[in-house]
C-alpha cells in the first residue's frame, strides 16, 4: 500500500509572519500504485511538495500523510531519486545500493540477492564495482533508481530525475521508467518542468501556478492512454506523435503559459 495525501498544505519560508509563501492550500490525493506528475514553472514550489512527502521539510500548515499517517521524518518507505543523483562518491555502485538494506539489518545473503536483482533490473551488472565518478550521468541515475527500488518502498519520490541528463539519455531513461512501472508498479510522485515527460509517464498530471504555488488543475492521462492504447507503441516518439498525446500536451502548455503571461514573463 502506498497512498499520499496533501490536506490544506501551506508552506512559508522564513519567519512565520513576513516570510515568503511558497505553497498555498495544496490538496492532492495520490492512490496506491498511481503515478502522478507535478508540472509547474520553476520556483513554484513543486519540489517543496516532494520534499514534504520525503520528510525533509515540515509543512507550515495542513497535513502531508502517507498511508493515512502524517509524515514526520525521512524513511526508507519513501525512497527519493534526486535530480543530482546524490550518490555517495566514496562507495561503489554495489555499496550505494546496499546501504539501505544494511540499515534494515538484512542478512548478507539476502542483501546480495536483492542487490543482484536491482543491478539486473537497471542493467548495471557490469558496473557493480565502479565508483560513481567513473559513470556517465545516465548510469549514475540508474544507480540512484536501483538504490531506491531495492528498498521495495511503498512510495517512490522522483525530483526532476532526468533534468540533469542530455536529451538522448533522458529519452532512454523515460522508456526505462515506463518499463519498470509495468514490471514493478509503485506509487510515484514525479516532479518535472518537462510537459512531454509528464504526459508520457504519468497517470495524472497536476499543473501548478506560479508562487505562491497552488494546484491549478489535475488532468487525467490514464483514461486517454488506455482509450487510445498508447502502450502498443514501444518508442516515446511514436507516442508523442499521437493526436491524443499532442492534445493533452497542448492543453498543459496553454495552462502553464497563462501562468507566465499573467506575470508578464
Amino acid at each position, binding site marked *: 500500500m502506498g497512498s499520499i495525501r496533501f490536506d490544506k498544505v501551506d508552506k512559508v519560508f522564513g519567519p512565520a509572519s513576513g516570510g515568503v509563501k511558497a505553497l498555498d492550500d495544496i490538496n492532492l490525493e495520490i492512490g496506491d500504485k498511481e503515478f502522478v506528475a507535478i508540472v509547474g514553472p520553476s520556483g513554484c514550489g513543486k519540489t517543496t511538495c516532494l520534499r514534504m512527502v*520525503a*520528510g*525533509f521539510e515540515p509543512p507550515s500548515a495542513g497535513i502531508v500523510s502517507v498511508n493515512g499517517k502524517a509524515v514526520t*521524518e*525521512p*524513511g*526508507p518507505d*519513501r*525512497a*527519493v531519486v*534526486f535530480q*543530482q543523483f*546524490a*550518490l*555517495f*562518491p*566514496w*562507495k561503489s555502485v554495489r555499496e550505494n545500493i546496499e*546501504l*539501505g538494506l*544494511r*540499515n*534494515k539489518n538484512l542478512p548478507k545473503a539476502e542483501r546480495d540477492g536483492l542487490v543482484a536483482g536491482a543491478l539486473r533490473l537497471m542493467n548495471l551488472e557490469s558496473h557493480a564495482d565502479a*565508483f560513481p*565518478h*567513473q559513470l556517465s550521468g545516465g548510469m549514475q541515475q540508474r544507480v540512484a533508481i536501483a*538504490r531506491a527500488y531495492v*528498498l521495495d518502498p511503498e512510495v517512490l519520490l522522483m525530483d526532476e530525475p532526468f533534468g540533469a541528463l542530455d536529451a538522448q539519455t533522458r529519452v532512454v531513461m523515460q522508456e526505462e521508467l515506463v518499463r519498470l512501472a509495468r514490471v514493478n508498479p509503485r506509487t510515484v510522485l514525479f516532479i518535472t518542468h518537462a510537459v512531454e515527460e509528464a504526459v508520457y509517464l504519468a497517470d495524472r498530471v497536476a499543473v501548478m501556478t506560479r508562487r505562491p504555488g497552488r494546484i491549478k488543475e489535475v488532468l487525467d492521462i490514464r483514461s486517454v492512454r488506455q482509450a487510445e492504447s498508447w502502450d502498443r507503441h514501444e518508442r516515446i516518439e511514436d507516442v508523442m506523435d499521437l493526436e491524443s498525446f499532442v492534445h493533452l500536451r497542448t492543453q498543459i502548455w496553454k495552462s502553464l503559459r497563462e501562468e507566465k503571461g499573467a506575470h508578464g514573463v
Partner: protein
Amino acid sequence: MQPIPLRMSEKWAWGALGLFGFIGLWAALSAFGIVPRQFLPSPIDVLARFVHLLTNPFAGATLPQHLASSFQRYAYGVLLAAFIGVPLGLLMGWFRWLDDVVTPLFDGLRFIAPIAWVPFAALWFGVGIGGPILIIFAGAFPPCLINAYRGARFVEPRLIEAARMLGTGHLRMILEILLPAATPSIVSGLRVSAGLGWQSLVGAELIVAAAGVGFMMVQAQANVATPTVMAGMAAIGLVGMAIDVMLRQGEAWLRRRRGLQV
C-alpha cells in the same frame, strides 16, 4: 593578463637562487666580521657541527638520538590530538547540542598559545614525557577538531538527505557518510596540526625535557656553543619540512584515489 606559469625547472632554479642567496648573505655577514662569529656562526661551521653531531653525542646523546626522542613525544602528542580531536569534531558536526556545549569552551581555550601551558606542564609532569605531550597536544588539537567539524558540517546536504532517506542511523551516518565526506578537510587539518605540533614541541623541550633537540639547544646555549644551537635549528627545519612533504604526498594520493584531482 594571465601570468605565464613557470616550468618545473625554472621553479627549481628560482628556489635554489633564494636558498643560495640567503646562505651567501649569511656567509658574508660572518666572514667579513660584520657580526661577531660568536653571535653568528658561519654556514660552514654549522654544517661541520651538524655532521659532527650526527655521530658524536652532545648533552648526553647524538643529534639523531635527540631527534628520535623528540619525535617520539611529538608522535604521541599529535596522535592523541588526532584521536580525540577528529571524532569529537565529527560528533559536533552531527549533534547540534554537542556543538553548543563544546564550542564556547573551545573558542576560549584555542587562543591560549601552547607555550602558555608550560608552567602547568612542568608542575604536573616535571621533565617526564607528559609535559611535552601536553604542550604538543595543545598546539595540534585545535586544527584536528576544527577541520573535522567543518568537514562534517559542510557535507553536501543532498548526501545527508539521501542517507536519511535510506534509514541510516547516527553511528553509521558519522562513520560512513560524514567521515569520508570530511576526509579531505580532516587531512588538511592533520597537516596543520603536524606543523603546529612540531613547532610547539621544540618550545616545550626548551623548558620541560631532559632529552630532545630543544633540550640539546638549551644546553648548547648555556655553553655558548652557537653552531650547535644552529645545527639544532637546521635539524628542526629539515624534519618539519620532511613531515610536511610526506603529508602533502598523502593528501595528493588520497585525492587521486577519490578521483578528485585538483
